[in-house]
């Protein structure tokens, strides 16, 4: 699944270089980390100089920022939003609670490990991560895109059964239609 730079075609290199400097982040504050996103986007930290900016709708967005814990109710909406997004698309897990549940490890309403349900390209640790850490995370994502190894969306398509199984285990009122790409 991972391919290094030598195997990239020249067109991929150009494509990835262009992609990595234009990351449109979906404006969906799924958890408390959303409070640091305005700070990252505005004057002091100014993520827009790196090509990172907000997008209002899933179909125009490239990056889904999971800002913190996901409750089961939100997870369903997030999956829906993620599947509405068009390629290329990336997921950033923001905060400790996306990695292993963080301080909500024993809560009955939050999932503990995000990458069982959605393919995560970059994790940013911390509770909550500072804007510098968020910028660092975006930098890492850009690096991965440049190398052509940020292929979470590819992974999701190839292993859809695995993800679907996990998702259905948690979401009790599953009413999505069965579809494939």
């Amino acid at each position: 699944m991972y391919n290094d730079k030598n195997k990239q075609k020249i067109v991929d290199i150009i494509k990835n270089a262009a992609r990595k400097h234009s990351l449109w982040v979906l404006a969906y504050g799924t958890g408390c980390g959303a409070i640091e996103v305005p700070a990252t986007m505005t004057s002091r930290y100014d993520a827009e100089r790196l090509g990172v900016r907000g997008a209002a709708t899933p179909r125009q967005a490239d990056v889904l920022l999971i800002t913190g814990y996901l409750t089961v109710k939100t997870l369903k909406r997030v999956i829906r939003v993620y599947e509405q997004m068009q390629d290329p698309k990336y997921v950033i897990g923001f905060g400790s609670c996306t990695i292993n549940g963080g301080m909500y490890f024993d809560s009955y309403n939050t999932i503990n490990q995000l990458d069982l349900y959605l393919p995560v390209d970059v994790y940013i640790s911390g509770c909550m991560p500072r804007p510098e850490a968020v910028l660092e995370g975006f930098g890492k994502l850009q690096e991965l895109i440049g190398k052509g190894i940020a292929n979470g969306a590819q992974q999701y398509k190839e292993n859809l059964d695995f993800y679907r199984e996990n998702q259905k285990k948690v979401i009790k009122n599953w009413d999505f239609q069965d579809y494939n790409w």
Partner: protein
Amino acid sequence: MKREKATTLYIGPQHPGITGNMMVRLKVEGDTIVGARTEVGYLHRAFEKLVERRNWVQSFTMMCRFCVPEPDPVEESYARAVEMLDNIEIPERAKWIRVLVLELARISSLLLWHAGQGHSLGLYTMGQWSVGDRNYILDLFEDLTGARIYHMFIWPGGVRRDFPKGFEDKVLKTMDYLEKRLEDYDNLLFENSIFQKRTQGVGYVNPEKVIEHGVVGPVLRGSGIKSDIRIDDPYEVYDKLKFEVPTQTGSDIWARALVRRVEIRQSIRIIRQVIEKIPKGDVYTKVPNPQKWKIARGDAFARTESVRGEVGMYVASDGGAKPRRVHFRGAAYVHAVTLLEEVLIGQNIADVSAIMNSLGTCPPEIER
């Protein structure tokens, strides 16, 4: 007039204009809202369940996460409730530091409100300015507590530590800077004729029913009722400080905006007084070892004035090492559900976001 067929319109949870992660289900006829339902639960982390498994001090890390934009009033409420339960007397200096932290939190949250209110009406410059300036307040927090957002600084027994070196000067300098910036905000937001036209007469709350609805804070003061927990039921050292409680009678978004415009200035005034009058001394009382701390059976309810209004914390103990029940009352619990559903009727779709911002909607506070 021909009656149009009502359509259902969902605003949220993924919507750039919504305040946080929640949903409003609207019934619209043309552009007019005829029915509204708030749907929450997207942020339910079951804090009140989790504290049953944590001891008195461990559960303290949960408290700041109840409301993300302004965590300190919740910490303060919990700390004060635990002190009431266990009869802990905190040192004088700690009380003053608490007031300072609470007022800094109020300013930072009001700056966030400026951004939200501007954003909801298409004035994106306001967000760039006020969120940028908010960083200066967060810098002060970082200096004092070590964290930008969740401080966990006010805790049962006092505050965690004293001011670092030169902190007072930094606070005063930041306040001077902020006061100058507020004039720019006036020019940009409050004297903006578009802002005035979009807010005057919009989001009207019936002033006769506000108290029965459980409305608190700036929404209540914007309806002409002078009510502030800091004066009505004073805690810490608010009775030794001089400040005004602004009121307006318009009862619309504009009136509430004017109330908040004065409030941020009053907070600066309070902070200057605190720096001037703060006494010397200890900043915390020794509390028992957190692992062995048991509190006798009883209950306490502590209220604090936050930006959105009165917040309260009910804590019940069964005599054990863990709280029996911690129940938080947020201002948004009332504002964003029953009140919002009523206020939205008859308004335009385009104003929903502005109304939500002006009522102080904060979803994590509703579902906890």
